Structure formats: structure tokens, C-alpha cells
């Protein structure tokens, strides 16, 4: 009796994590995602190799495999920035509401486990699957690149790629958390899928238009006079608004990390350029440059997960 009533917090979480992981890996959804990401990976590698001859800078050639576009095929980096969210959304959009609809949530919460281990288990399992996909694809792409082109990666390049992949996992996990949040709030899986896709499309496509409109309204640059006094502020505001979008934040951060020639992410005045010696940034300096981006996106991910966590914990369990 005493042994039975002992609190078993971690046991429940472990069992839930394993079950969710097995669910994901066995599902057709996972296979489709793998094909999608695999296909884009191969396509982007093909584009990169054909565009490689046009790369002027022969240093950091290996990184160009990830960042070069050619034959009008986007680079792996921009592909992932655009399609990565799909992985997160697909894995999470029905996390909670399908359990609710299927009557399994009732059964689950009646077991002697902490209620939060249900949602933590789902998030961790989803993130594990995301990490598996991203690292496999990223490292696999590099491996194929080595074989095909014969370009050897330097130590720093390997580190840069690992930072890039890790950050991609955080980015996709953010979208996973968002879709889990929607699955807590929305009753039907279809609603939560649509809502999270809408958010993704907004950030990926419309956010830049919206921030442009706002920036132009606040700091008009219509004629020469206004352009002269307002263009600096206009650009800064535009950039600031754009950075609200996780898509932009991520793109900016990873293009800095994967491209050692990027020396600034903000507007640079002529003053600042005077006497500057052109050269590469070390990995540490690149990281420093986008550190606010990295922490910002990690914070966004935690906020999104926190939202779904609180939403789930406060929700009534009853189905009707």
C-alpha cells in the first residue's frame, strides 16, 4: 500500500515521453515530413553545388553548401527557415485536442501522474523528433557534400554548422510549442491546424509588408526631403518590427552565423565604416553579434510553451 501510493513523478513522464516518441516515429505523418525535408535537402544541395563555382570567396567554402542558391533553387538555410515550421506544426497541432476528442485524456488524467507531465511529455517528445530530423538532415547534407565536391570542412565550419542546426531545432520547437498551444485552446484539430498555419504564413510572408507600411506611415520617405531626414529611422523601425517575427529573427541570426563576412546586423553609417579593416569574424564574434536573436528566440519558444502549459493546467478536464 505504501509503496503503491508513493509519488511517481518521473515514471509517468518517462512513460508518456516514450509513448509519444513511438507514436511520432510510427506515424505516416513523420514519414511525410522526412520525405519533405529530405527532398528539399537534396534539391538545395544540387542548387548549391551548381552555384558553387560562382562563389567568389574561397574561404569557408564548405559553409557555402548550406548558404548558396543556384539554378533558382533556394539554399538549404532559406528552405529550412521557410519549411522548418511545418515540421513543428505538423507534430503538434492535434497534441491535446485529439486526446480530448478521442476520450483518452480522461483516462490519462485518472492515472497517478502529475498533470503537467502530459504536456511536458508531448513537448519533449516532439522536440526530440525535431532534433532527430534536423541533425540527421544537416549532417547528412554535409556528408553528401563532402563526397560530391571533395571540399573538406574546417573545425570552425563544423562548429558553425552545429550552432546553426541547434538553433534551427529551437526555431522549429518554437513552432511546435505554438501548435501545441493552439491544440489546447481549439476544440477541433482542424481549427488548430488552420490557426497555426495562418500564423506561420503571416510571419513568413506578410510581416515584412506590414512592418513596411507601418514604418512608412511613421517616418514617411516619399520625397527627397523626407527621405533625407527619415530614412535612418524608417529603416530602424522597419527592422525592429520585422524582428518581432520569429522567421526574420531566425533568418538574420543563422545567416550571420553561417556567413563570417557579416559584420553587423543593424544599419551601418559611413562614420562607422571609416578605417574598418575588412576581414572575417571569428565564431565567438558572430555569436556575440546575434546573441540577442538567439536568446530572443529561445525566450519566444519558452513563452509559447509556457502559454500552452498554463492553458492546459487551467483547463477543465470534462469533455462536454
Amino acid at each position, binding site marked *: 500500500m505504501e509503496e503503491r*501510493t508513493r509519488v511517481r513523478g518521473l515514471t509517468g513522464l518517462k512513460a508518456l515521453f516514450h*509513448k509519444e516518441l513511438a507514436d511520432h516515429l510510427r506515424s505516416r505523418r513523420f514519414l511525410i515530413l522526412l520525405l519533405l525535408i529530405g527532398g528539399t535537402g537534396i534539391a538545395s544541395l544540387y542548387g548549391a553545388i551548381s552555384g558553387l563555382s560562382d562563389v567568389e570567396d574561397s574561404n569557408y567554402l564548405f559553409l557555402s553548401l548550406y548558404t548558396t542558391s543556384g539554378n533558382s533553387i533556394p539554399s538549404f538555410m532559406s528552405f529550412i527557415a521557410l519549411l522548418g515550421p511545418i515540421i513543428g506544426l505538423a507534430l503538434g497541432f492535434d497534441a491535446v485536442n485529439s486526446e480530448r476528442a478521442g476520450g483518452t485524456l480522461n*483516462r490519462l488524467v485518472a*492515472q497517478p501522474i502529475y498533470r503537467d507531465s502530459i504536456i511536458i511529455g508531448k513537448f519533449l517528445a516532439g522536440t526530440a523528433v525535431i532534433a532527430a530530423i534536423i541533425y540527421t538532415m544537416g549532417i547528412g547534407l554535409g556528408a553528401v557534400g563532402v563526397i560530391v565536391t571533395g571540399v573538406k570542412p574546417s573545425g570552425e565550419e563544423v562548429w558553425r554548422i552545429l550552432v546553426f542546426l541547434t538553433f534551427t531545432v529551437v526555431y522549429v520547437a518554437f513552432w511546435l510549442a505554438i501548435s501545441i498551444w493552439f491544440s489546447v485552446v481549439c476544440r477541433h484539430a482542424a481549427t488548430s491546424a488552420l490557426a497555426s498555419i495562418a500564423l506561420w504564413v503571416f510571419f513568413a510572408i506578410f510581416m515584412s509588408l506590414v512592418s513596411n507600411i507601418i514604418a512608412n506611415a511613421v517616418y514617411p520617405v516619399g520625397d527627397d526631403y523626407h527621405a533625407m531626414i527619415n530614412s535612418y529611422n524608417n529603416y530602424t523601425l522597419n527592422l525592429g518590427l520585422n524582428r518581432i517575427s520569429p522567421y526574420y529573427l531566425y533568418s538574420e541570426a543563422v545567416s550571420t552565423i553561417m556567413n563570417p563576412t557579416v559584420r553587423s546586423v543593424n544599419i551601418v553609417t559611413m562614420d562607422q565604416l571609416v578605417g574598418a579593416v575588412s576581414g572575417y569574424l571569428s565564431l565567438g564574434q558572430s555569436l556575440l553579434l546575434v546573441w540577442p536573436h538567439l536568446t530572443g528566440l529561445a525566450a519566444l519558444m519558452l513563452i509559447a510553451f509556457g502559454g500552452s502549459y498554463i492553458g492546459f493546467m487551467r483547463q477543465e478536464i470534462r469533455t462536454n
Partner: protein
Amino acid sequence: MKETYQNACADLPESVCKTIGGGTGMSENNRNVIEIAHLTKQYGDKRAVDDLNLSIRRGEVFGLLGPNGAGKTTTILMLLGLTEPTAGTALIEGLDCARHPLEVKSIVGYLPDNVGFYPDMTGRQNLRFTGQLNGLSGKELEERIDGLLERVGMTEAADRRAGTYSKGMRQRLGIADVLIKDPEIIIMDEPTLGIDPEGMRELLNLIRELSVEDGRTILISSHQLHQIQQVCDRVGIFVEGRLIASGTLSELEEQILKDGSYLLEVNVHPCDDKLLGMLSAQEGIEKIQKEGNTFLITSKQDIRGQLTKFLGEKEYTILHLHQRGGDLDEIYRRYFEKAGQNDERNDYEEKKKHGWKHGRKNARQGADRA
């Protein structure tokens, strides 16, 4: 304990309380497994559960009866610590359900209404997952799963995907799922809903078995009276968040009859309005209703003998004569009337009266209504 019951039936005539209180007094040394005191749950303006007091003894099968929306599920959720009570306490084995939900849930098995399983996993995998959540593993778990599948008759279908199961199979797997943790107390929410008669018989046998052979305490919530009266030791009638009566079937029945309204069904030939007039003039008859060819006669005492003689003298042939009462359906109806539910639920009652004559059909109607 007596006090608890006094509260439970504060609105009822004293005689009821006496009956019920007396019933529990006999087994005072039997410790109560579930103790609910002044439990209240408020949703906005609506009181889902209103000052509920209830004790359930070890090893008994208790039926919580009431129409949909009476607050049965809310009560159950509070017992499991899944919903916070607005006021009052619920104790299971002396543990406060709101404060120690984990300990409570490890000794209570809960079979929700419309129990669901992960459709892509087999029945066995579903059970294994529940076992793991309860900290079981390895050989012990596998043996227990095999034993339970055997017990609920699901061995054949165990390795099929749960998505292909019928409602009855899901219900049986649900019982195996509840038993995985070897609970002392089992709570079932509407277990008989939407099950065919054969499945129902098996289910009721299983419930009996769990109570008698395993000695588990079972709490069943339902609005389907016929099924419940076959297995319950005691029932509580629950309307609009209040427990308006509780006790064994015979106690409730006795109480109803003591209240002095006998209801007699009479079917005679020829069936004419003249008889209606003559009967109304008879002594002892309070009210006569005509339903089709059947007269419903309400009286203060048993007038069967008197009536037979009277009808014989007037040369009427008695085709059907039946004293209502004695089954849960009737008891249920009477208590509703008493609780002032009658007007609101005329439609409901009408259906029930109809269903009453057709026995089995009643169950089906219950399901439709749900």
C-alpha cells in the same frame, strides 16, 4: 456518520432519514471508504453540486442515479481531484481528494463515459501504457495484462488496433484498463450507455464479480435505472446537484409506500367514460387518469381487493391490474415528483412511462436521450 445522513436528506420527511440512518447504523464498524461532506461546486451562476453529503462503505456497489446534467460527472471529477471543489471535502481512504490527487488516483480506478483508446495502438499496447503510467513494468505487467484480457474476454482481439473495436469491446477493454492498477475503488461513469443487451449482461456480471469476488468498492453513475438496480447494493438519487435520497432499494421503496400514494394500473372491458365517473365517486381514490385504455388510479391505501369486487359487481372484465412501485424506475419517478422536478420533466416522465411498459426499450430510449 448519522449526522452525515441527516444532512443528506434535510429536505425530506423525517421518516426517510430514519430509514436511511437506521440502515447504516447496522454496520457501523465497517469503515467508510468514501466520505463526502458538504461538497459544493459552482460554475458561474450554476451550482453543479450543492452541499453533497455521502458515505460509501467498503465493498459495496453504490449507484449514483440522476438525469443528465445532475452533477454526477462533476462529483466524480472532484473525487478524483480533477476538479477543485468550491467548498466542502471529499475523502477517499482518509485522503483529501483535492490535496492528494496522486495518492487517491493510485487506489481509484476511473472508467470515464465514452472511454477512448489510442486508435493506432493495439488493445494490449494500450493496457501496457496504462501499466507503465502506474509504475508497472516487465514480466509482472505482462502477466497482469494477459490475466485481465482473459478476464474481460478480450484475448482474441488484444492484438488488433484499438481503432477497430466496437463500443462494447472498448468498454470491456476499459474495465481491464481500470483493473491494471489493481484499484480498491472503481468509479464508473455511465458504463451501460450504448451497449447491446448481451454486452450489458456481461458487463453487469463483471461488475458483480468485481464486487463480490474481489471485494472492491464500486461507484456507478448512471441514468439507466434498470441496469443499475440489478447490481447496486445502495443507490443515491441525485437531482440538480442535490442528493435527494439514498439507501437500499427496499428502503427507498418502503419510504415511498409509506408516503401513502399507491398507483394502480387497470385495464378493463368495456372501457367507457361511465366507469370513470363511478370510480371517481369511490371512497379512497384520490385521482384517476386515463391513458389510452388504461386507468391510472392513485390512492391512499391498497384498494386492489375493493376494486376487484366493485368491478365484478358492475360486470366489467379486468384485463390488467398492476400495482406500480417496487422497481427503481418508479422510485426514481416518485422522488422526482417530490423534488419538484415533475413539471420541468414532463416530457421525460412521459417517455419513461411509455418505456416502462416495454421493459427493454427503456434502455434504448435512455441512450437516445443521452
